[in-house]
């Protein structure tokens, strides 16, 4: 199995703008959360997506609101790529009443069902069956929708990986399984925990296509996603895409990352940054002017700051919210 690199450029200017902006939103949002967290303001566990932007954005570039995604504990990037509101997201992370989930979910359960974002998930491997269910609805209702399941290299060894992909395969459901192989599950290297060389190699066990993609190359991800989403929409069943990537921060905020080597960090954070790479791609293909890119970057900076402001000035939920929405009726 070889790593698929981008070959052609099917990306329009408009798409390129969208991709660039979304990647920036994710990066700046996460950098900001990191900064705020270090001040001790934010409650709970926070897992940042910075470094992996090309995956969520390259995939979601092919989806619209009727399509579904299931996410992970590291879900901010998926949310943003799927079009969730930054204000609502930041508020949620603060535990405020104006959050996407009224402050009840937090970073690990952030969701926006209207946007087809079926939730971050505190349970590793939790997303596989959930993506299958969304795919089942799409198939039975003939809605043409696709369900994407984002999951980590750690999740790849959980039983739900096996059950979920097998189900999607035998029922030929419109599901795309996207492995975000960032090399680690917490402090445990992929190579230690997984008996396979590539996660995509496991596709053979389900008679579905499996593809390894450079997850720092958003164009490559975009192209692989195009093939997989088309296959899904055509009723041909699921695909497994493995994106080799890296998380720029620790497993969660507070992780000293002793398991990462200095060279490795240098390589990923400095030399092989997905956003820098795409910026270079845009400029060398003269898709968007440098000035316009700068404008986008600045708009994003403003939007993220606005989100923090919005979150900070928002109220906490009130006492009667505690018992609300446990049930529709009881």
């Amino acid at each position, binding site marked *: 199995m070889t790593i698929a690199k981008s070959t052609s450029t099917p990306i329009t200017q408009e798409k390129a703008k969208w991709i660039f902006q979304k990647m920036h939103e994710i990066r700046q949002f996460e950098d900001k959360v990191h900064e705020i967290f270090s001040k001790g303001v934010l409650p709970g566990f926070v897992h940042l997506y910075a470094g992996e932007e090309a995956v969520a954005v390259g995939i979601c570039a092919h989806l619209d609101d009727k399509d579904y995604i299931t996410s992970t504990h590291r879900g901010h990037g998926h949310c943003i790529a799927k079009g969730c509101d930054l204000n609502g997201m930041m508020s949620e992370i603060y535990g405020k009443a104006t959050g996407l989930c009224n402050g009840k*979910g937090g970073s690990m359960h952030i*969701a926006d069902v209207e946007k087809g974002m079926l939730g971050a998930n505190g349970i590793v491997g939790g997303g596989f*069956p*959930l993506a*299958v269910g969304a795919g*089942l609805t799409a198939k039975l209702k003939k809605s043409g929708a696709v369900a994407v399941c984002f999951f980590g290299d750690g999740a790849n060894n959980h039983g739900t990986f096996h059950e979920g992909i097998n189900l999607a395969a035998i029922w030929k459901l419109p599901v795309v399984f996207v492995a975000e192989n960032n090399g680690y599950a917490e402090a445990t290297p992929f190579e230690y925990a997984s008996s396979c060389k590539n996660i995509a190699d496991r596709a053979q066990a389900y008679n579905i296509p499996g593809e390894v993609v450079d997850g720092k190359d958003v164009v490559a991800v975009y192209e692989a996603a195009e093939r997989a989403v088309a296959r899904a929409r055509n009723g041909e069943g699921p695909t497994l895409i493995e994106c080799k990537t890296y998380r720029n921060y620790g497993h969660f905020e507070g992780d000293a990352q002793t398991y990462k080597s200095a060279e490795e960090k240098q390589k990923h954070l400095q030399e092989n940054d997905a956003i820098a790479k795409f910026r270079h791609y845009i400029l060398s293909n003269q898709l968007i002017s440098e000035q316009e890119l700068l404008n986008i970057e600045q708009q994003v900076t403003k939007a993220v700051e606005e989100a923090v402001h919005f979150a900070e000035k928002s109220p906490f939920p009130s006492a009667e919210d505690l018992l609300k929405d*446990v*049930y*529709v009726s009881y």
Partner: protein
Amino acid sequence: MARKISFSGAVNEAMKLAMRKDQNVILLGEDVAGGANVDHLQDDEAWGGVMGVTKGLVQEFGRERVLDTPIAEAGYIGAAVTAAATGLRPIAELMFNDFIGSCLDEVMNQAAKLRYMFGGKAKVPVTIRTMHGAGFRAAAQHSQSLYALFTHIPGLKVVVPSTPADAKGLLLTSIFDDDPVIFFEDKTLYNLKGEVEEGFYTIPFGKADIKREGSDLTIVAIGKQVHTALKAADILKTRGVETEVIDPRTLSPLDEETILSSVSKTGRLIVIDEANPRCSAAADISALVADKGFDYLDGPIKLITAPHCPVPFSPALEDLYLPTPEKVLKAAAEIIGDEAIVTA
């Protein structure tokens, strides 16, 4: 019009009616149709579930809506959760409730919590039907009654019917309820026959049924044990004790009012629950009354449950494991303070 049909027939009928009424109702589970993709198999020869409870559904609704699944409970129960959240109204069959060990996460952390975690912006109208109960000589891994585990978990509704008529009405309510429901079917009740109305009807959740009225003693009994209670009540009557038998029908929500008002009348409470005793539904009902009904009580609350041990295989032991009318008489004698009730 009412006719006598079996408990399993009533369950089957409810699913049929629900699937006729709403295209979004689908059924999935292991062998719920049976013989998927077998060329020579006529649909009417298909199993329809390991006990035949879903027989005939695939004939009427086809294999698109009656889906056989691999043995992958986490996979298909989890799938049912989001299928529900995205617009379907699935009935997922967990063949035996003992198999919850393979898919508790999907029920406890996903189905039960989605709505709350999402700030009310999702609903999960899934019904999980599952078999429970001892007495079938099915041993420790196929005989448990695990409704306490589910009752403990907020976000779930828990239904345990005792008669064919209740099973039908409560299952229809379950399917059209917008929250996740776990619907328990006692495998040893499937052949029990009873009067069941034809056509579509529902029975509200959280409304206990007083299966027998009485003024001296309240027995709250769960599922099949309602019949143990009724038998005991017959005997107790001959010994001068008028027993009120309450079938809560749904453990979550629980009809606290009916239970409390009965105890306010009788002053005495026995709970029969064939599950294991610790942290059980029986203990739960006792705790309710020991708080809110304490002033009504004339004596201790007695629980008739299984002992704190797994379900044994040997018929000789399994018969000792289960509640019996005799055990009820003993408890009644104790709280009433009249030994003669046992021996009379």
